[in-house]
């Protein structure tokens, strides 16, 4: 089973390396969305400092949406997904491998570049640290929950919009506690509560989402 999980993971990473433009596009989208906000709300440093964490988090949600559409679409259209369903491996484990690959390719880069964008918004070192930790805990949840939506909307017309409609409401808790942590940390309220809640979400999603994704894939391939 681990050999199979590893080979799916490596295959997805390998494919991404041969099609780097897709990975880069998500990252650049993230950077552009974050950088656009000051044009909308004005360059007031104080205002931007307050908005910063929220803007970065919302942009991360949107970037995740953008990349989720591709999570299973390629495998669906060339028949690889059928073959995955027919392997004598637990489908949830294979789905988890694909989600992990998705996070490494589109979640982790966002986490790494977020501090740079945070500087644009004048966030302090402490705020940046909290932001990175929450993103690190939160973005895998986005990938895990998003995978369920991506699997459900596979091959449907208007898939992208539909996917956002299904998944974005489910992201609300992650958004609240992810973006809220920076505020809580800076106002001295203690940020551990946020961390543990995000970790709990991650754990819950890690346990439940692969099963739901596997079930959704079976429904969509039929």
């Amino acid at each position: 089973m681990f050999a199979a999980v590893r080979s799916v993971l490596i295959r997805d990473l390998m494919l991404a390396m041969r099609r780097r433009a897709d990975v880069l596009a998500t990252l650049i989208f993230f950077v552009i969305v974050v950088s656009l906000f000051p044009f909308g709300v004005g360059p007031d440093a104080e205002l931007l400092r307050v908005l910063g964490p929220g803007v970065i988090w919302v942009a991360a949600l949107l970037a995740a949406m953008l990349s989720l559409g591709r999570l299973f679409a390629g495998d669906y259209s060339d028949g690889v997904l059928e073959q995955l369903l027919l392997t004598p491996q637990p489908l949830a484990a294979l789905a988890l491998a694909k989600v992990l690959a998705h996070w490494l390719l589109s979640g982790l880069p966002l986490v790494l570049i977020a501090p740079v964008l945070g500087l644009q918004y004048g966030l302090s070192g402490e705020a940046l640290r909290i932001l990175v930790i929450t993103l690190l805990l939160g973005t895998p949840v986005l990938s895990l929950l998003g995978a369920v939506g991506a699997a459900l909307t596979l091959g449907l017309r208007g898939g992208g919009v539909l996917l956002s409609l299904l998944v974005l409401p489910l992201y609300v808790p992650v958004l609240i506690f992810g973006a809220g942590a920076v505020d809580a940390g800076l106002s001295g309220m203690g940020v551990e509560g946020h961390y543990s809640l995000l970790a709990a979400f991650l754990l819950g999603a890690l346990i439940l989402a692969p099963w739901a994704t596997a079930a959704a894939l079976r429904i969509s391939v039929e």
Partner: protein
Amino acid sequence: MAINWFKYSSPASFYPLAGRMIPWAMAVGVLTGVAGLYVGFFVAPTDYQQGESYRIMFIHVPAAWMSMFTYIVMAVWAVAGLIWNTRLSSMMATALAPTGAMFTFIALWTGALWGKPTWGTYWVWDARLTSELILLFLYIGFIALQASIDDPRRAARAGGLLALVGLVNVPIIYWSVKWWNTLHQGASISFAKAPTMAAEMLLALLLVTLAFWAYTIAVALMRVRCEILESERQSSWIYETVEGLR
């Protein structure tokens, strides 16, 4: 699967049963609705803090209750359909969704109209309004997903799974929003306590809730009958049972 443990789980026998139930449910709905409005407008006293504006409560609160109950009932039907692969359960879920979404919208709409005279603004990011808004998105997602799938079996199963995921998430979302709201707003506008609930007010609330329940049942049954007619157009019983086809 071998025993038909519930006779009415087959569309053919449920269709006429539903037809007999609809007028009764409608009648109960209209009667309790009229009674509720009468008590609400002519018996219940004017609130000493909010004046007459609190009378919006008589639809706002029942609509909000309905929106949540309906979601749970819908999800339970959908999940039952997913587990036991019974067509009728999934159809019930599909039939409940638009009415649930409608009550969610009504709760939002009346909440906004109640908010203006009470809080001075149509929209506040109050925990209840916000989670109601997210609930509306969940309903719309369910409806949109089913609408974009052509194969009825896939639509039923995908909807069931989505409803299950939603059901797990609803408490988390509700609780997060509540927490978020108390953190940002303080407890300045808790209005559950504001109108001291007179017995007449409670009576009106309960009557309207009952009316909404009966209405939802009637409308869901009407919709389920349409779903059955559409999906069973190949079966001969349709042509034997349905009046007006001869």
